[in-house]
């Protein structure tokens, strides 16, 4: 009996925490179908009497969601794939090729990359992008995003590749396979679980990135979703109902992905906690 009360006490406290996490989302969801600010103010906690779904249609047009969404998707996918290709080649060379003197040094060097507080390097990278004439093109995000995820990706992939038994490629060498064929035909297929994890983590990081996207692109049609949403907020902060619809648009895709892949995402993000 005492145990039962104790356990339900735990649930009460945990449910309170859950409410604190979930209520802001509900608040935005409810507000997104309300007529105007007056209705939000008079009834902040409940559903409206009349659902105004046209907020979603208006926000889609006014916030240019489709443009920003496609930009974000394109940049996040291309940069994450590029990171994986480049980092898996390096991880293969470090863990599977027989250069046992040099490889540990290179690995240590790349580890330092994780320790550097990234935001502090924004100015030199901005300058670099300017010299390459990348500013105000998608290259200004694609290249830095690809590069910035490399150290974390190498750490995860080398840990995984080290755990593969060496007999595998010894057999392949006997069969006459060259290094690049061993990489493409044997090691990469075996590394797929780790590749999925790093892809998700890098994709989310790129999808959510704000600072570089904010400073490196000024052309509206090139902007990504987080920057576009902030611009929309600044322009429409008198109409909170429509702004809420905009927030829903930008939260839902991530929530759907999270709902489907939550185990992989939690595993990957906590393993890559270092990435912050």
């Amino acid at each position, binding site marked *: 009996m005492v145990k039962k009360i104790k356990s339900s006490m735990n649930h009460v406290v945990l449910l309170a925490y859950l409410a604190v996490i979930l*209520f802001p*989302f509900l608040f935005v969801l409810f507000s997104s179908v309300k007529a105007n600010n007056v209705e939000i103010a008079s009834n*902040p906690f409940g559903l409206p009497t009349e659902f105004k779904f046209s907020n979603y249609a208006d926000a889609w047009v006014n916030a240019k969601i489709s443009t920003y969404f496609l930009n974000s998707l394109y940049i996040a996918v291309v940069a994450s794939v590029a990171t994986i290709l480049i980092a898996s080649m*390096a991880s293969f060379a*470090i863990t599977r090729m027989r250069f046992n003197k040099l490889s540990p040094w290179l690995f240590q060097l790349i580890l330092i990359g994780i320790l550097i507080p990234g935001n502090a390097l924004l100015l030199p990278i901005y300058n670099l992008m300017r010299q390459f004439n990348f500013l105000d093109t998608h290259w200004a995000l694609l290249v830095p995003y690809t590069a910035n995820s490399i150290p974390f990706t*190498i750490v995860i992939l080398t840990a995984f590749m080290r755990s593969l038994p060496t007999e595998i490629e010894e057999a392949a060498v006997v069969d006459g396979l060259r290094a690049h064929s061993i990489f493409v035909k044997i090691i990469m297929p075996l590394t797929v679980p780790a590749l999925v994890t790093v892809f998700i983590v890098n994709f989310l990081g790129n999808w959510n990135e704000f600072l570089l996207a904010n400073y490196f692109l000024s052309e509206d049609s090139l902007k990504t979703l987080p920057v576009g949403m902030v611009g929309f907020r600044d322009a429409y902060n008198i109409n909170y109902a429509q702004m809420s619809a905009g927030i829903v648009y930008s939260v839902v895709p991530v929530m759907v992905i999270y709902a489907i892949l939550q185990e992989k995402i939690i595993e990957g993000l906590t393993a890559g906690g270092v990435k912050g």
Partner: protein
Amino acid sequence: MNKALRKPVTYILFLLPTLFLFTLFFIYPVINATYYSFTSWNGISNVVKFTGLANYSRAMNDPNFWIAVKNNGLFILFSVFIQVPIIILFSLLIANVKKLKGLYKTAVFAPSVMSTAVIGILWGFIYEPDIGLMNNFLGLFGIDKIYWLSDRSWAMISILITNGWQWTGFYIVMVLAAIISIPKELDEAAMIDGATGWQRARKITVPLIMPIISVVIMLSVAGAMKAADIVLVMTKGGPSGATDVMATYMLKHSIKSFKYGFGNSIAVLIFIFTLIITVLYQLLVAKRTERIEY
């Protein structure tokens, strides 16, 4: 036998793209930032004037810079003294319930997969003085309207709450994984000896998860030192610089006002402060929480 895996040319080709990008985006920027921090350069012209430590002394003599440093400090203090106890409490609670464990874990983690910018917008709405959730909720208890983000005395704490709301769940899940990996026998043995749940948590679980708590603190410090987007989105550093952190101070005084040299001296100071805190923490605290073998 292993000739195929000993070809230097292949080795170099496989590493080349990584080394090229790493040099360009990690090594070069660090050197570049350090070099230009000793100059007054507007970022564009051909004239780069060497000014020694002038940028640094200018930063040190600017009260607004120290407000920014203090705010980074507040980020750290908030996470160590407010978030960490909450993290320990809730990870213990989730580890000890039998039902709904998965739901709690999924839900508390959810905010950390979302964009900080969008969360900043969402919370800006919650803090809105007239129609926002916060004032409406506090109004139920007869508390007067608070101008959360435009009042100097509330703006910083508002940002810290939002930041805590986003990241606490992330760390709860990390600590939860550590608690679950503790062998059950330890807890059972203590239970047979008659230890209460509170005693078991305090004397067994918490000491065993100290290494991961240490990691959580280090990650919070790293996160606090590079915090920028949440501040930019919620207050842009305002009202009048009251919520600036070092990174936003750096951006405010460089890109828009063409003070590339000065901005980079702030970048170097961010490095130095991060380094000092990390070393101090390792010397004073982490040494005492050595790895524990079961």
